């Protein structure tokens, strides 16, 4: 080795202390982080054992706050720690089909039946329903509040060319909205007034609030939404707006890693009287959001 390089190397050693300190700091930070996240780490470890179940759910279930009531009770009653992956119905079913979750709780009947027909799930169990509501500017330029039906309300918005925000993300709410347009006999609308935002319920409500537009929302997300601005609930109550939630365990024949025993225990709980009490009893601003309708 040349003298120059050996000098360089000795310099390196003389500065090694500082390097060591930096490395030590890094590890200390990592250690702190690991300690702080210890509960998390344990949760993940359990993810491979018993007791932890992953369920893909729609944003409305989580945003309504109902999950925060149900999950601790499920844990207390059955010992199952349910980890929620909160996504739109489209993505939830994709996660189920890939075997990345153990069960799904979604609300889009046609898509659910396609999911079952493809063999991705074992069966479909109806749990509860809530309803969709039409939200719009408080002064209601389209006159949707006086509509005779849900489709009539949408047609009034269309006739007025009033801005309408569509989820546009293949979610259950989005599918319902498109089905309503179809039922109204106009197909998927187009034009500058119709704005698919390709986002979740909360994001779509934020957009609608920003541009003072009409938007179809589930009642729970709307009530819980904190940025209402000039928006108001204009139309609700048509039976076609009922929004049925169904629980589908992922097929263990397709994905051997799926925790089907836990999924069955969770289903038993979700259809029990205990669940009925909690779901029917859940109130937000004094309003009942969900109606339990699981058949034993």
């Amino acid at each position, binding site marked *: 080795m*040349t003298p*120059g*390089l050996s000098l*360089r190397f000795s310099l*390196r050693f003389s500065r090694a*202390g*500082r390097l060591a*300190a*930096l490395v030590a*700091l*890094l590890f200390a*930070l*990592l250690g*702190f*982080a*690991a*300690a*702080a*996240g210890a*509960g*998390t*780490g344990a*949760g*993940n470890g359990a*993810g*491979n054992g018993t007791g932890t179940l*992953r369920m893909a759910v729609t*944003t409305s279930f989580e*945003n309504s706050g109902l999950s925060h009531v149900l999950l601790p009770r499920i844990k207390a009653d059955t010992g199952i720690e349910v*980890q*929620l*992956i*909160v996504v739109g119905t489209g993505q939830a079913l994709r996660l189920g*089909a*890939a*075997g*990345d979750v153990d069960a799904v709780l979604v609300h889009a009947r046609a898509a659910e039946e396609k999911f079952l027909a493809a063999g991705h799930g074992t069966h479909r169990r109806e749990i509860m329903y809530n309803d969709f509501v039409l939200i719009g500017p408080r002064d209601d330029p389209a006159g949707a509040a006086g509509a005779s039906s849900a489709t009539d309300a949408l047609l009034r918005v269309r006739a007025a060319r009033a801005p309408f925000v569509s989820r546009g993300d293949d979610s259950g709410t989005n599918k319902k909205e498109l089905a309503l347009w179809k039922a109204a006999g106009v197909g998927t609308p187009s034009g500058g007034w119709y704005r698919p935002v390709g986002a*979740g*319920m*909360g*994001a779509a*409500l*934020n957009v609608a*609030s920003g541009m003072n537009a009409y938007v179809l929302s589930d009642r729970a997300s709307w009530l*819980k*939404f*904190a*940025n*209402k601005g000039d928006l108001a609930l204009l139309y609700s109550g048509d039976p076609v707006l009922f929004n049925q939630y169904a629980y589908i365990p992922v097929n263990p024949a397709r*994905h051997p*890693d799926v925790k089907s025993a836990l999924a069955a225990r969770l289903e038993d709980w979700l259809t029990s009287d205990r669940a009925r009490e909690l779901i029917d009893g859940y109130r937000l601003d004094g309003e009942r959001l969900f109606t339990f309708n699981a058949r034993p």
Partner: protein
Amino acid sequence: MHDIWRGLMEAGRLVVTLDADLYEIIGLSLRVTLSAVLVASLVGLPLGAWLAVNRFRHRRLAVATLNALMGLPPVVVGLFVYLLLSRSGPLGMLGLLFTPGAMIIAQAIIVTPLIASIAHQAIRELWAEYHDLLISMNATRGQRMRTLLWDGRRALLTAMLAGFGRAIGEVGAIMIVGGSIEHSTRVLTTAIALETSKGNFEFALGLGLVLIGLALAVNLLIHGLGRTERGSTW
């Protein structure tokens, strides 16, 4: 302006009240991002140095590619890592999806090009300066790279901090591969996205300010430690 002020108050309240959930997600944010930066540095720094001291046929293309990859859209990386780690994907048997491990992988992929690119830039300049000396000393390629990496360490630290900055604020990829599961994979950025979607802007902004404070603290800590000891020559 009113909302921003309330966001500040909220941030203060969160930090002062030692909110346990908050410290949990801060801890996970730090753990995921620091691990990702560590992994990305182990790959990116030597890669940058190697690109700087070696001349080969498609070097220009390699450097251009590296620079372009700095702009990798996190959502695409997230989707790619999801498809890899999905139970139906090639690495599904590892069971990493929806764990911090998956988030570390995604972030490491996102910041490696950034770290390698900044490292390459810094080391190339240093190499121009050291070229004659190192060649005349007949240093081997490995010795050259080690020397340049060591003498350019301050710039490399900057590269790592840039990587840290990009990773700690990243949301698109970790949302897809982590799932933002409460008490398991929820970190600051995904919590901010969640609160924003609920319309809880003050709380979201408060969390955002906590995130900025965290990044500032890490930067100050590392710079402080680098400089204060033995003074000048850094």
